[in-house]
């Protein structure tokens, strides 16, 4: 079996006369966390719904582990787990009954497997309670448990950290990484938050207006766009020195912003200090998603 677990080719969705998704193609490999990044309305959700078989594509093929979901739906689906948008489960059933409900829809899920995923997401204590009494984080975890029941090769998570508190978000990130690294799952994560994707994913696809405008590793994608913010005293001298060394992108009364370069940052600060400028603060700043989009789409607005 090849390492490609999810392959999308020429995916297209037309509703009426509007083209919602324009010819997407990408491939995901085993053990990879792949990010789907884009503002709301970029077509992320529609794409994900096509991947999991909720929406029929107008054209194109989707293969999970080589199985075409249009032709071999049930076989393909047994290799995939997903949470689309919120982890909506039956609030009037207990967590255990919810898992049983989805377990019987897969083949050969044993009691032990259910207990195993419950342990995996750390819900042992509350699994007998009604889901209606769960916090959002617990529901999210139950959703993951449900997605993992059938030991899928591909896990698709739509905005998995939505609505979680900071510690929940951290936990979720670590959990997703460990699934990919330890279990070798392919995880596809969508988000509209750049730093989220940056911390979790190996590769990122950036979507806007139904198109993937760029697919790259996180480092590559961000390298050209990171900034360095300097707080210097005296400021005018510092600015002068920096502009000799590199390009000053902007400056105000307190700070100077330059491009970021891991290689040169140390040297630049040394040169500043040698010149008698005290460096109060050096701050590496991630580009805002909006900036990235402006850059990638050549100044076109993202809405």
């Amino acid at each position, binding site marked *: 079996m090849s390492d490609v677990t999810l392959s999308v080719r020429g995916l297209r969705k037309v509703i009426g006369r509007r083209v919602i998704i324009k010819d997407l193609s990408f491939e995901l490999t085993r053990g990879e966390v792949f990010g789907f990044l884009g503002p709301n309305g970029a077509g992320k959700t529609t794409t994900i719904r096509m991947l*999991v078989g909720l*929406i*029929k594509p107008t054209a194109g093929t989707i293969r999970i582990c080589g199985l075409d979901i249009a032709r071999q*739906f*049930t076989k393909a*689906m047994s290799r995939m787990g997903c949470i689309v*948008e919120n982890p*909506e489960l039956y609030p009037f059933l207990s967590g255990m009954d919810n898992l049983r409900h989805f377990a019987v829809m*897969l083949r050969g899920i044993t009691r032990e497997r259910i207990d195993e995923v419950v342990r995996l997401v750390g819900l042992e204590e509350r699994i007998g309670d009604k889901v209606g009494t769960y916090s959002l984080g617990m529901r999210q975890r139950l959703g993951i448990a449900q997605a993992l029941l059938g030991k899928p090769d591909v896990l698709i998570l739509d905005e998995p950290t939505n609505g979680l508190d900071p510690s929940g978000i951290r936990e979720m990130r670590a959990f997703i990484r460990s699934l990919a690294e330890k279990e070798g799952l392919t995880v596809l994560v969508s988000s509209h938050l750049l730093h989220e994707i940056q911390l979790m994913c190996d590769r990122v696809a950036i979507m806007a207006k139904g198109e993937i405008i760029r697919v790259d590793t996180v480092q590559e994608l961000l390298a050209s766009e990171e900034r360095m913010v300097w707080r210097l005293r005296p400021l005018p001298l510092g600015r002068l020195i920096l502009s000799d060394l590199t390009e000053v992108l902007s400056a105000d009364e307190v700070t100077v912003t330059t491009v970021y370069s891991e290689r040169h940052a140390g040297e630049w600060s040394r040169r500043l200090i040698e010149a008698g400028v005290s460096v109060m603060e050096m701050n590496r700043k991630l580009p805002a998603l909006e900036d990235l989009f402006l850059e990638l789409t050549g100044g076109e607005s993202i809405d």
Partner: protein
Amino acid sequence: MINLVHNEMMKLLGKRRFLIIGIIIVVLLALFAYAQARQSEAVKERLGEVDWRTELQQQIVDWQNRLSSAGQWREQLEIQIDQYQYYLDHDVNPSEPGAPSFMRGFTENSAELFLPLLVMIVAVDLVSSERSMGTIKLLLTRPVSRSAVLLSKYIALVLSVSIVIFLFALLSYLISALMFGNKGWTAPVLTGFEVRGGELDASGVRLVSQWQYLLQQFGLAWFISLVVGTLSFMLSILMRSSAAGMGTMLACLISGAILSNMVSSWDSAKYLFMVNLGLMDYMSGSPPPIEGMTLGFSLTVLAVWMAAALAASFAVFTRKDIY
């Protein structure tokens, strides 16, 4: 498949739908039984302690006196009088006191509107609730084909209809046995009256035991409820909200009840499903809403509607995009 059906039953039980239905039935039954008890008290008040023949004779005469002012109901009243006279002439009590007779009357009155309504409580959100809860996204991304998911839901519906009718039968038996006593299961019931050209035709009349009549009634009530359930099921797929589906179905049922009373001159209305729900009338021998309708005709019309609704349900559900 059996596991999928179990799933659906688990959800229905989880939602406590049958409990709600049971409570509704009990409340309505209590009202109905009380009304019945009051009525027989009133008759006693008026006539004194009398046997059923006297009571029936009085009823017939009372109706005869209403004939002249009955207007459009005249024909129906005449047929009813003829029927009661037939009972009287053949010395058969049309309502032997006891639980079975009460159940018979209650079922006859409930089959067209009340029972279908109860079934709607289950049917109308079988699919649309999954959509409004969002769980449909999980349900349809499992390695189970959409038609299998829908079929399991439909089987669960058929089972639910059966349970609703059973609850109805059981509760009406318990309450009426408490109030009227548990006797009269083998009492004879006359059936097979037919209405031809506005006249009662008693040539096909035969005698059946009350328990048999009841079982047949429940069979028909089950079928009526199943038809309404299937149509609600379809609406639950076609419409996003349960409320809209419920409203539409309710409008259909009520318009059916109204139409049945006034469409006698609009002949093609007999192909509408809601005009055909009065299957019980064929058993008791009341005139059908439109001249020429028979049990076979109504069953066929209902079956066709049901098959069409099922076909539409499957066609839409297996193709529909879920947003």
